[in-house]
């Protein structure tokens, strides 16, 4: 399969600090990729390369034939949606208005089309936020906000969904539902790339796990291959006890 995204020896540096060192990766449609690693490993920087928000200092990061940051932003936004923690707090936008903003790259004129209405209704339904649509966004709980932001990205009807810690602030049920939803989306043909700190959930739902450490890719593959006790202990500097769920998934306990 032809990859959607391709990074070849991509590096990012700020002054003397090398945030990302010679990363080469390829991502294809239908994958659910979880990116894990300790703080400062370069996960968010990698995500902003993919989002075209940053240009690599060396090497390339391409979406299709073109460098990600060189795309016309509107064309890019029709293909790639980004979910990141945003404070939409200054103004009283409603949840559905926030979701409608995802339709911007498909805009034709000043007002929404029936097509927009349909995409927004669909996104609100998939994230379970339909009952909240008329609530003021800034009065929602952190978890509810997170789900509205996801709905806004889905309303963009993208081919690629990039998420920066989408499960932060979510309670247990919604963490599980989110991961189920992301898996369904990837099975439906989307490329999903999510930064996560929950290795167990990533192992249970993602089709591929990338482990980053000090700006490099330390491991890349199916979770069962990546999650080795020695590797996790070295990268995260914690003790790990590896178990398996009855269905054979790896399940780790961290700490003492």
């Amino acid at each position, binding site marked *: 399969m032809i990859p959607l995204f391709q990074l070849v020896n991509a590096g990012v540096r700020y002054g003397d600090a090398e945030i990302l060192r010679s990363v080469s990766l390829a991502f294809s449609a239908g994958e659910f990729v979880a990116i894990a690693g300790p703080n400062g490993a370069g996960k968010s920087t990698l995500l902003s390369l993919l989002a075209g928000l940053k240009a690599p200092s060396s090497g390339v990061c391409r979406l299709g034939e073109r460098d990600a940051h060189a795309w016309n932003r*509107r064309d890019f936004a029709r293909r790639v949606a980004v979910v990141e923690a945003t404070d939409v707090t200054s*103004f009283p936008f409603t949840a559905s208005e926030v979701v409608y903003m995802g339709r911007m790259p498909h805009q034709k004129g*000043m007002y929404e089309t029936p097509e927009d209405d349909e995409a927004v209704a669909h996104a609100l339904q998939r994230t379970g936020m339909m009952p909240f649509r008329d609530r003021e966004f800034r009065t929602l709980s952190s978890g509810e906000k997170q789900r509205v932001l996801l709905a806004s990205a889905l309303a963009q009807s993208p081919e690629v969904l990039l998420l920066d810690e989408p499960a932060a602030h979510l309670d247990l049920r919604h963490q599980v539902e989110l991961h189920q939803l992301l898996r369904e989306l990837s099975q439906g043909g989307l490329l999903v790339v999510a930064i996560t700190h929950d290795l167990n959930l990533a192992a249970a739902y993602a089709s591929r796990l990338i482990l980053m450490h000090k700006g490099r890719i330390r491991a890349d593959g199916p979770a069962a291959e990546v999650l080795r006790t020695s590797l996790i202990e070295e990268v995260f500097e914690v003790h790990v006890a590896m178990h398996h769920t009855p269905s054979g998934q790896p399940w780790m306990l961290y700490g003492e």
Partner: protein
Amino acid sequence: MANSRRNAGWIAAIMFSAVAAILAGLTAVLVGSHNLSLDRAIKGLAPDRDILIQLRLPRALLALWAGGALSLAGVLFQALMRNPLATPDTLGVSSGAALGAVVAIALGWSSGSAISGVSIAACAGAAIVLVLVVVIASNRGSISSVGLLLSGVTINIMCGATIVFIASMVGFLKSFAVAHWLMGGLDAPEYSTLAWLTAVLIPVCLVVFWHGREWNLLAVGDTWATTRGLSTSRLLLIGCVAGSLLTGAVTALTGPIAFVGLIVPHALRMWLGADHRILAPCAFLLGAAFLALCDVFSRTILAPVEVPVGVITALLGGPFFIWMLKSKRGGVTL
């Protein structure tokens, strides 16, 4: 979805605002120290006809334009800075315009043609301050309320001091002209001046209205707008040029009139929500109505003595600003 219901609400809001602006304009024409008879004026009888044509009508039109433009500039700056406290006054943009205008007055550019050196200098002053504020207050793409307000305060003080300095240099007569202008009044302008003002403001307002959906996204965040396909640098440029023209063109004619851009947009957001497609036109119309009514008040409260309208808006707006800082609904986080 709920769009048809919303659209009906929007149309009602626009109609209401337009009617309010028309009624306020009529009130400004009819009410004053001399109670005008429209009947006599239309029949061409003195002095009603002259009062209407020479004084009341141009003054009411200026009040409507100035109120609308300042209120719209408020909405625009609030979206650009992502902060409901951003206005031409709090950012120091009005002061910049005032300084530009005072320099022009001191140089003796004021008289004569309708599009005067004063107007151009005021727009330039506004633009310079706006660029300064964006540079000073923004820190890696995010703009903090504290940075914004403090840079506004600093610029206000510096512009004020420079104005006093210039006024002290230029001799008594010009200094009086500067002082009078600085009080913020709505002296009846020439019709040719009004025509120029209209010619500048109509395209600017239309551009601002047209980008309503883009302002929504920009008001949420830079990255938010970028990842949804917008060119934020282009929008920022459009916003700054439009905001400078709105503030500068009006301030050149009226002197600084404070707080219109704070009160009207904030009250409107509580009523209509935050969507700039409805907020911008309604803010324009109700800002126009608001200033026209303030002007009626300023002319009648101590009649026949006239209080400068800038005094009225400042006395109303100051407490409102403090209330916004303290209230939860104001949504202001420092």
